[in-house]
């Protein structure tokens, strides 16, 4: 349903005018809402007899002129990125291992792996962090990293497995008929295709991983949130809470939007180029066409992403 305009008759001049009017009215309402919020924030407030300056008052933002503060924030960003990068590498490795074990032909490999994956997927990452922190007493850094690696590894493994399952059977059969072994076919023929197919999902999962490092705030790992919202706001005082929040928010938004943008451009590249695998035309060799399966897998992966905690 990409072209929902199919559903309507082409709008005539009257309908176009109406839609333009609603558009302007709606836009005006939204702008009014935003302005109202800004005004409320900017207005000075009475609190117990003292007048507090508005949120955009200079006295609330002067700390950002201090280079030392940016040093602290930078340390927080590094803490976040370091945990995310190490966890991402381990998650990818684990994901590949999980997907191979999960799609094994041997029942006694496949079923236990499925149980393990379900267990890791069904648990909150936060609980896993606490578990690792208390049981293995690893310190908060490794608690954050290993919990994120295991959890996202399980999710990436599932995505890769869906990719493997969605490949046309002919790929495997062709590999086998060339005289390759099971494992060779899997690693050399099926896996690269599945990985490519699922790359956008995997990158999107890595965005989730980056967001999830913020849970380190709760288990006491000094990442960005802890650096700004806890350490700095108690050091400089509560009146900088809001400005610090805004800055943290913007930093996170920038990091995540950059990664999301990467995911999207990967998805576009996959959709436009990379033909010649005959998948688009081959469809319907099973009762479920692969494209459909991929769509469902993508949709549920997108949904699971909110796992994001």
């Amino acid at each position, binding site marked *: 349903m990409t072209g929902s305009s199919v559903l309507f008759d082409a709008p005539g001049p009257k309908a176009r005018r109406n839609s333009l009017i609603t558009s302007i009215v709606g836009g005006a309402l939204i702008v009014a809402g935003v302005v109202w919020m800004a005004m409320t924030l900017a207005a000075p407030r009475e609190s117990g007899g003292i007048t507090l300056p508005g949120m955009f008052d200079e006295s609330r933002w002067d700390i950002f002129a201090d280079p030392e503060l940016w040093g602290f924030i930078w340390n927080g960003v590094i803490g976040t990125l370091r945990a995310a990068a190490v966890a991402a590498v381990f998650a990818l490795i684990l994901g590949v291992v999980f997907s191979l074990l999960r799609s094994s032909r041997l029942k006694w490999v496949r079923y236990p792996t499925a149980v393990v994956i379900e267990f890791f997927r069904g648990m909150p990452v936060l609980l896993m962090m606490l578990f690792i922190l208390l049981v293995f007493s690893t310190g908060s850094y490794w608690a954050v990293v290993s919990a994120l690696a295991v959890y996202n590894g399980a999710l990436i493994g599932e995505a890769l497995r869906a990719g493997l399952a969605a490949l046309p059977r002919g790929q495997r059969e062709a590999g086998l008929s060339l005289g390759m072994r099971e494992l060779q076919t899997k690693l050399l023929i099926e896996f690269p295709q599945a990985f490519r197919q699922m790359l956008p999902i995997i990158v999107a999962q890595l965005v989730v991983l980056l967001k999830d490092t913020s849970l380190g705030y709760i288990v006491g790992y000094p990442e960005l949130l802890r650096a700004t919202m806890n350490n700095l706001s108690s050091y400089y005082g509560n009146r900088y809470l809001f400005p610090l929040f805004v800055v943290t928010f913007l930093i996170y938004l920038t990091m995540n939007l950059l990664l999301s943008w990467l995911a999207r451009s990967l998805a576009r590249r996959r959709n436009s180029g990379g033909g010649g695998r005959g998948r688009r035309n081959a469809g319907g060799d099973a009762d479920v066409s692969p494209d459909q399966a991929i769509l469902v897998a993508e949709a549920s992966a997108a949904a699971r992403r*909110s796992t994001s905690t």
Partner: protein
Amino acid sequence: MDVVIDNLPLYLQGFGVTLLLLAVGGVGALVIGVLIATMRIAPVASLRWFATVYTEIIRNTPLTLVFIFCAFVLPYLGADIPYLVSAFIALGVYTSPFVAEALRSGINGVPVGQAEAARSIGLGFGQSVSLVIFPQAFRMTIPPLINVFIALTKNTSVAGGFFVAELFATGRTLANANGSAVIPILLGVAFFYLLITVPLGLFAGRLEAKWAVAR
């Protein structure tokens, strides 16, 4: 194991709060999500714009940050709300764009040909949506939606870090009180989470397989 059984009432209490968070947050997310999804396909450009920006911003913000906003920044700005309510708001707002995306992906998954066919045999807008497109979109929407709720279930644990005495917070308190039996205590907490997430996940998987539309 004894520790878990001894503290079963505490567990159940925490589990109740988790279910409450799940229910209220879920309903809130559904309401906002449906609203945003409708705005996204509305023929009015400014609403579409707003919905897109909203989705992008919330989706790229960590839940912890949303929680900090609702628990610390909102009261500071003058909203006097208990922590439980701020957790409801945080979970509802955070989950809403994911609900909206699940709905949208379901509608986008129906091939244009279906709508064209419906229109070409003379069905009107209402008829083609309600008889042709929605029944197909519905099947593709429910499994992702269930997955959104599974994620929400797990996300309620973050509320435990912000002064809401739900399952995770209960587990943490118990683990701190009984240092010698940390493993059974936390596995007990995990069990309660799995009690919600695993059946829901199996259900979603069944529906996905059963409802895959053969075209």
